[in-house]
C-alpha cells in the first residue's frame, strides 16, 4: 500500500517548467531519498507534495498527516523550544505527546530555551520535534541537515534514522549528500534535467546499511555518475 502516490506530476513557475512527468510511489514505512543538482526542483517536489505551491498538474495523493522539516529550522523566535513543539499540537493527545517527542529528539533539557540561544543542531531537532508531534504518517524532509557542520550532521543522521524508525513514518528526504542518502534511504531517486525528470532509481539492499562502513561501492559510483550526468551520456551514445 502506497503512502504517497505521485502520477505524471508537472510543476511550472510561469512559463518555466520545473518538474515534468514525475511518477513516484512511496510505500508505507519506506524512506526515499531524492538526490539531484542544486536548483533542479527537489524542493519543489516536496512543496508540491505538501500542497505549498499552487497549481501542480497531475495527481498527488498522500495518506494521513504530513510533517515537514525545512532546511532552516524556521522556529518561532518568541516561543521556547517546548512551545514551538506545542504549537503544532491540536488535540489533547497531541499535546500529551510533546514530552515524548522532546525526549525522542533529545531536547528534554532545553524546554525553556529560546531559539536564539540554540545551536544549529538543537534548532533543527526542535523543528523535527515540531513535525513529529502530530504523529505524521508522512515526513517530508527538505535538506534538514544541510546547514550543519560535518560532525553534527553525522550525529543527526543517526538520530534521524532512529527517530523515523521509532515513529514508523514514511519519509521523503531531499538531500545533495550521496552518503546521507545511502545511509538513511531504502531507495534513492535521482532528479535531473530542466524540467527535472526522474533519471534513476536505486533500491538500497533491504538490510539497510545502518553503519558507515557498509559496502555500497557499486551504488555509490552509479549515483555519482548519474549526478554528474555521465551515465546519461553513455546511454545516449549506446
Amino acid at each position, binding site marked *: 500500500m502506497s503512502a504517497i502516490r505521485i502520477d505524471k506530476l508537472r510543476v511550472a513557475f510561469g512559463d518555466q517548467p520545473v518538474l515534468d512527468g514525475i511518477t513516484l510511489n512511496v510505500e508505507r514505512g519506506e524512506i526515499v531519498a531524492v538526490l539531484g543538482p542544486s536548483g533542479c526542483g527537489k524542493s519543489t517536489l516536496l512543496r508540491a507534495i*505538501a500542497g*505549498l505551491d499552487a497549481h501542480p498538474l497531475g495527481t498527488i495523493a498522500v495518506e494521513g498527516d*504530513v510533517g*515537514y522539516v*525545512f532546511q*532552516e529550522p*524556521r522556529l*518561532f*523566535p*518568541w*516561543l521556547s523550544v517546548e512551545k514551538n513543539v506545542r*504549537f*503544532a499540537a491540536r488535540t489533547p493527545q497531541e499535546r500529551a505527546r510533546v514530552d515524548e517527542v522532546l525526549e525522542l529528539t533529545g531536547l528534554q533539557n532545553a524546554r525553556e530555551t*529560546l*531559539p*536564539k540561544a540554540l545551536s544549529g543542531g538543537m534548532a533543527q531537532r526542535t523543528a523535527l520535534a515540531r513535525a513529529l508531534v502530530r504523529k505524521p504518517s508522512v515526513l517530508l524532509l527538505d535538506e534538514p541537515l544541510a546547514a550543519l557542520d560535518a560532525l553534527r550532521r553525522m550525529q543527526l543522521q543517526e538520530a534521524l534514522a532512529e527517530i523515523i524508525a521509532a515513529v514508523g513514518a514514511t519519509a521523503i528526504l531531499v538531500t545533495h549528500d550521496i552518503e546521507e542518502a545511502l545511509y538513511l534511504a531504502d531507495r534513492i531517486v535521482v532528479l535531473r534535467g530542466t524540467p527535472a525528470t526522474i533519471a534513476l532509481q536505486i533500491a538500497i539492499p533491504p538490510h539497510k546499511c545502518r553503519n558507515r562502513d557498509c559496502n555500497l561501492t557499486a551504488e555509490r559510483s552509479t549515483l555519482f555518475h548519474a549526478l554528474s550526468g555521465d551515465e546519461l551520456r553513455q546511454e545516449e551514445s549506446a
Partner: protein
Amino acid sequence: MHRSLLAWLLPAAILAVWIVAGAAHWFAPDQLAPPSRVLAELGSLWQRGLLQQDILASAGRVLGGFAIALALAVAIGTLVGLNRTIERAIDPTLQAVRAVPSLAWVPLLLLWLGIGEAAKITLIAIGAFFPIYVNLVAGIHGVDRKLVEVARILGLHPVAVAMRVVLPAAFPSLLVGARIGLTQAWLFLVAAELLASTRGLGFLLTEGQQISRPDEILVAILLLAIAGKLCESGMLTIERRTTAWQDGLR
C-alpha cells in the same frame, strides 16, 4: 555607575550655566528665572494644590487619547497589514490624513467639539494614532514569510495564522510605534492645551507667558520633560521585557 553618571553630565552643565546666568543677571527677571525661583514656584504651586490638578488633567488627557489611538491603530493596522484589499481601500486615505500638519486640525476640532475635553483628547488621539498604525503595518508586512509557511503546512486557519504567527512576530514593531505614539501624545497635548484650556501643563505655559512669569513656564517645561522621559523609559522597559526573544544587538 559610570554610564549613569555620564547621562547626568549634560543636565549638570546646563544647570550650572543657568545658575551663573541668573547670578550674573544675563537676562531680565521677566525673561529667565534662576533655578531657585523655579523650585520655589514649583513648591508654591504644589502647596496650593494647583500643580497636582494640572498634572492630573494633562496625564488624563494623554492617557485617554493614547488609549483610543492604540485601540484604533491595532484594529485598523492589523486589518490593513493582513489584507491587501483593505489596504488598497483605506491606506491611501490614511496616509493623506497623516500628511496634514497636526495643528491644522485644531480649528476644526474646536468648531465641532467645542473647547472641552473631547476636542483635546481627539487631537491627542490623532497625533498618537499614526506612529502606531504605520509601525504596525510595516511590522506585519515584514513578517518572515517562511514562518507563515510553517503555520500553513500545519493547516492553521488564516485567522489563527494571524493571531499565532503574524501578530506575535509584528509585536516588537507595534511596541516601537506605541513608544513613538506616546511621545506624540504629549506633543499634541501641549498643542491642545496651549490653545484652549483652564487646567494642565500647557495651560501653565500660556498663563506664565501672559502674566510674564518665566518661573511658571519653566516649571511646566520641567514637568513635561520629566513626564516624557518617564513614559519613554516605561515603554522601553515594557519593550525589553516582552521582546527579549529578539536576537538583536541589544
